[in-house]
């Protein structure tokens, strides 16, 4: 990794580089998560906003979007379109089982000084080596990996689509994500680059906040084994998020984020 050489210079974690959009919540909202019948369809909204699940800020970019079918193979995303506030796309569940929909993105950001001026740069890791001018000083760089997911199931839940990639922050379900009911606690394992992410705060937020005087929002923490448990206060569409800051093997600052939407059904 040639990046490693350059960034060995980078002293501290680049706090200032995080784009404003990261303060908002990235979410995927499926029209249904538990389906029956032959080859059902789901339609999914994707957006970045503060209020869940109301698209009122910016549409989610669909570049990194992928759907994995019950057999672990990719499934085509159909009718994708991006509007002002939200993107939408459809997915046909041609075979029974669970589908994972994820939008993963990786990138690098850097700030540096050039001729007394502070410059910022964002781009891919591949471009980083050539993007920063040779005479730049005070180069501070960090990489980021973000993943936004949701799950839908036709018929009985299956696990073939749930395999993790081992890159960035990911969720390994213990309780099946499409087998959630309000009366039962759910357990999931958070993984950072495939290893248990311990002592990480996970934010849990219930959607449909517009019609409530007080939103349902709380935090739980992962244990040494990366496992966290959620007791759902009521049925609804929930959004969870976690993020970790660390270093990649080369010592480069690295921010990893994970967010997912879960539907918790009434008993």
């Amino acid at each position: 990794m040639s990046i490693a050489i350059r960034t060995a210079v980078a002293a501290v974690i680049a706090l200032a580089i995080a784009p404003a959009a990261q303060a908002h919540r990235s979410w995927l909202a499926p029209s249904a998560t538990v389906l029956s019948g032959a080859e059902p369809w789901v339609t999914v909204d994707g957006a970045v906003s503060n209020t869940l699940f109301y698209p009122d800020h910016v549409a989610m970019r669909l570049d990194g979007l992928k759907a994995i079918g019950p057999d672990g193979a990719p499934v085509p995303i159909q009718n994708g379109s991006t509007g002002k506030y939200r993107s939408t796309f459809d997915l046909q569940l041609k075979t029974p089982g669970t589908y994972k929909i994820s939008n993963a993105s990786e990138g690098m950001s850097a700030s540096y000084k050039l001729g007394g001026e502070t410059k910022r740069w964002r781009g891919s890791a591949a471009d980083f080596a050539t993007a920063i001018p040779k005479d730049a000083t005070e180069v501070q760089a960090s990489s980021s990996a973000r993943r936004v997911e949701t799950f839908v199931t036709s018929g009985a839940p299956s696990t073939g689509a749930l395999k993790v990639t081992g890159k960035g922050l990911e969720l390994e379900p213990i309780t099946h994500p499409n087998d959630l009911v309000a009366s039962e606690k759910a357990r999931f394992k958070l993984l950072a680059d495939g290893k248990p992410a311990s002592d990480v705060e996970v934010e849990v937020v219930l959607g449909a906040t517009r019609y409530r005087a007080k939103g349902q929002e709380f935090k739980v923490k992962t244990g040494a084994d990366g496992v966290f448990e959620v007791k759902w206060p009521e049925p609804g569409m929930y959004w969870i998020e976690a993020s970790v800051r660390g270093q990649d093997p080369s010592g480069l600052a690295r921010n990893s984020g994970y967010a997912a939407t879960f539907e918790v059904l009434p008993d």
Partner: protein
Amino acid sequence: MRAVKSPTLFAALTGVAALPAAADAAELAVSVEIPRLSVAEYHRPYVALWIEGPDEAAVKTLAVWYNGKLAKNEGASWLKDMRQWWRKAGRGLTLPADGVSGPTKAPGKHQIVVTAQQMAGVAPGQYSLVVEAAREVGGREVIRVPFSWPPKAGAKPATVAGTTELGAITVATKP
């Protein structure tokens, strides 16, 4: 109406073939009342009947009344609206299933009789007969009625009344 015919035929055959079948004459009779509702848009409810053990796990699905006649089997897309049944049993079944699936029923009282043959493999113990109804443009209701199996002599029928989507559910067992 294969669902109705085949058990009758089966009962008739076994009745002829196996005379010393006193124990096999045991049965579970369930009466399900579907209320007449005064609503602008009425669709007959989807109804599932199943048996649960004390741990509330499904032991056996007895009946599923749904619309299996629509093009592309579209009626199956609402089976999941019987949420408890779908999660506990439905999503693992293949429908239509002989002797289990049948068409939706009109408002009124409907009787199903479950024979000892059909209850084969159900261990002695306390159970609940569960009825779940889900109606398009309507609501959902789940009713549990306790019974013990095999039937005890002199066991009285038990009735639990629904309040919205279901009327009285009566379970009677006879040895």
